[in-house]
């Protein structure tokens, strides 16, 4: 029992760190894209509002990136501390993308330092903008590489296991494992989507509080248009991810959809509850939709969970995570669509409270969607740490003090999270955009 506890605690600590890191990681991928976009538009249209937007976003970004960096450093080392046996084996196969991830960070970190402190140092503003390319390029690349690692855990390949030794190791095959493409795209687009929606939510909130100037309106338009584009892309590659699962990890899809018997023309089950007999109640059933989702064909056969040995089935709770993610995705898609339609339509006015409030709510919801997506993907891999090769229980540390570390890190993240919010509020409260516009561009 003591051993099992160690495993459970290690999982909890990993979950805690990753769930905290992913908030900042997601913003770290998406916000630089928006900063770069705003600066570019500002230069092209010679519009100081966009220039200021880029500067102010960048100022907030410095704070979130710092938390992203320290929590990322934690998870990087914690993987070895909590899963030493896993890292010993997997290290032989996936250290290539991990190593490349660090290079991408390195590149990004260097240019971020330069970018932040050279706003007025170049004669041509476009040179400064050029510096933003390695920043978002670096963070997207590093998210790609780390996602490759995670994809490898889901669909490991590129080696043969003989007893306890690995032979025929092929790092390139391990790198280009089947789960990688869909995951990379879905992670990247969802990160950009979430960042735009979070920025939009903040802006909408400011407008509701009475900041109705051009600056805030331009900011909301920019974030909502990009938000619409990336909500759409996220739903699109989310759908492709589901098709990938149907092909390569049917047990994850089946557990996520509560699809027990293999059948043709399978229904899609939304929400609902399970009773003691394992029957589904209170659910919305969309006939044949699951078959369509999985194979683009309403009559295709979808593998059920009963095909998987009982001790290798993922927990059924992941159904709710999937539903949460998809519901929120549809919600942001809808909201941003309404906004953009009203924006384009001459008689429309998108800056009304009935629309601004739902946008404010969409901010925290998007973060919840990211968390739900990862919980779905990670718990859906259970009980495997390397699907088909190594179970989570074989990989955990044998140390007896994980519980203590769990408490420490819990406190640490509590403090960091609270301070991040306090500091961010302070930065912007003491220095409202209108005042800064006056001061900076009073020509």
């Amino acid at each position: 029992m003591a051993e099992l506890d160690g495993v459970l605690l290690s999982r909890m600590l990993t979950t805690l760190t990753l769930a905290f890191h992913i908030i900042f990681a997601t913003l770290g991928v998406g916000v630089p894209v928006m900063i770069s976009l705003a600066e570019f538009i500002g230069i092209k249209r010679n519009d100081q509002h966009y220039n200021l937007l880029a500067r102010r976003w960048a100022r907030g970004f410095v704070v979130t990136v710092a938390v992203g960096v320290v929590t990322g450093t934690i998870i990087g080392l914690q993987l070895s501390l909590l899963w030493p046996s896993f890292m010993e084996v997997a290290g032989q196969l996936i250290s290539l993308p991990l190593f490349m991830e660090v290079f991408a960070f390195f590149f990004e970190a260097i240019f971020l330092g330069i970018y932040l402190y050279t706003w007025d140092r170049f004669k041509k503003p476009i040179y400064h903008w050029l510096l933003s390319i390695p920043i978002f390029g670096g963070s997207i690349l590093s998210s790609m590489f780390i996602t490759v690692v995670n994809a490898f855990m889901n669909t490991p390949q590129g080696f043969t296991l003989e007893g306890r030794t690995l032979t025929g190791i092929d790092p390139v095959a391990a790198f280009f494992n089947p789960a990688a493409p869909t995951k990379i795209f879905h992670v990247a687009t969802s990160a950009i989507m979430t960042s735009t929606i979070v920025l939009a939510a903040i802006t909408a909130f400011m407008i509701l509080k009475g900041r109705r100037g051009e600056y805030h309106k331009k900011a909301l338009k920019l974030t909502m248009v990009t938000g619409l584009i990336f909500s759409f892309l996220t739903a699109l590659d989310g759908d492709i991810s589901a098709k990938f699962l149907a092909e390569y990890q049917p047990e994850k899809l089946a557990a996520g959809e509560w699809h027990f018997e293999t059948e043709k023309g399978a229904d899609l089950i939304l929400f609902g509850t399970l009773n003691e007999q394992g029957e589904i109640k209170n659910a919305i059933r969309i006939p044949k939709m699951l078959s369509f989702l999985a194979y683009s064909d309403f009559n295709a056969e979808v593998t059920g969970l009963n095909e998987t040995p009982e001790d290798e089935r993922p927990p059924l709770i992941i159904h709710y995570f999937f539903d949460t993610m998809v519901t929120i995705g549809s919600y942001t898609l809808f909201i941003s669509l309404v906004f953009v339609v009203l924006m384009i339509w001459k008689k429309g006015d998108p800056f009304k409270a009935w629309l601004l409030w739902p946008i404010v709510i969409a901010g925290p919801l998007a973060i919840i969607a990211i968390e739900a997506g990862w919980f779905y993907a990670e718990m859906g891999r259970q009980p495997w740490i390397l699907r088909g090769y190594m179970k989570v229980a074989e990989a955990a540390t044998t140390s007896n003090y994980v519980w203590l570390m769990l408490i420490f890190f819990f406190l640490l993240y509590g403090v960091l999270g609270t301070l991040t919010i306090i500091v961010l509020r302070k930065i912007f409260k003491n220095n409202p955009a209108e005042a800064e516009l006056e001061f900076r561009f009073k020509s």
Partner: protein
Amino acid sequence: MDIPIIGMTVLWIFLYGYLIVASIDFGAGFFAFYAKFTKRDDIVNNLISRYLSPVWEVTNVFFVFFFVGIVGFFPQTAYYFGTALLIPGSIALILLAIRGSFYAFGNYGSKDSMVYTFLYGATGLFIPASLSTVLTISEGGFLEERNNTVVFLAQELFTSFYSWSVVFLAIVSVLFISAAFLTYYSARANDQPAIKLLRRFALIWAPPTILASLLVFISLQRHNPRHFENMLGIWWMFGLSLLFFLIATYLIYTKKNYGTAFILVMLQFFFAFFGYGASHLPYILEPFVTISSAYTNETMGMALVIAFIAGLLLLVPSLILLMRLFLFDADYVKGNR
């Protein structure tokens, strides 16, 4: 040269890079706190923040690079160190996290908070102390393999004279390296009061640095005679290190060429660090892990080396750009930009 040696050399170079840039950062944190405490922060703190702000994240990546690299090239180290060092490793991580984020909070958010500055200064000394114990542990004698797990003998570590002399060395070197660099930096800015203060710091911390090195030598002889013998085999590296130290201190003392002095300090640590590393081999962790036992498979080793070369082609020009903009641009250093 075979790949494990190349891999280890590469990693060691990065760890050396971390040693230098992180020492500057850690020491600067301590000086910033000290200056604030003694109400002299108007003299040095702007200077320090002008240097640190653009580069602190880069410093952190040096560290990440090292530990990701060592798990990549030598996965077995993940097993031994990972199993044994959960507690000390986690504590070092928490300190690093506090330091990094509080730097950002303090610097971009609420300026002049004494609490942030204090945490920033204190962690600057605790982190090198706790990280240096990993090197101590690698000398052997602090880990034990018992029924299928690796146990860390914390008590041994806390009562070992060798271990404490390494901690002492780590702290004073941090302060010495940092003061030497900041003296140079303030000279670039031509900031007389700052030069005066920082030069004094450099001179104060010079003698303890050499004293601590001697202590480590002596206690290593008792703790790990094999390693000590190997060191004597390459005594000239340590001799050179001492020579560079003496010239550097002399230059700072006579107020000449602070730039050259700092380069000599870097060379001093380069030779000591590589002398230490070379004589440590073939062990990574005595007696469990050697560079050949821990080495990953041949294919992965090659792939990593190729990735490394490609990465360097990208990094070196960018690092040079960073240094030109913030280190060697006299206008920036002076605060005119």
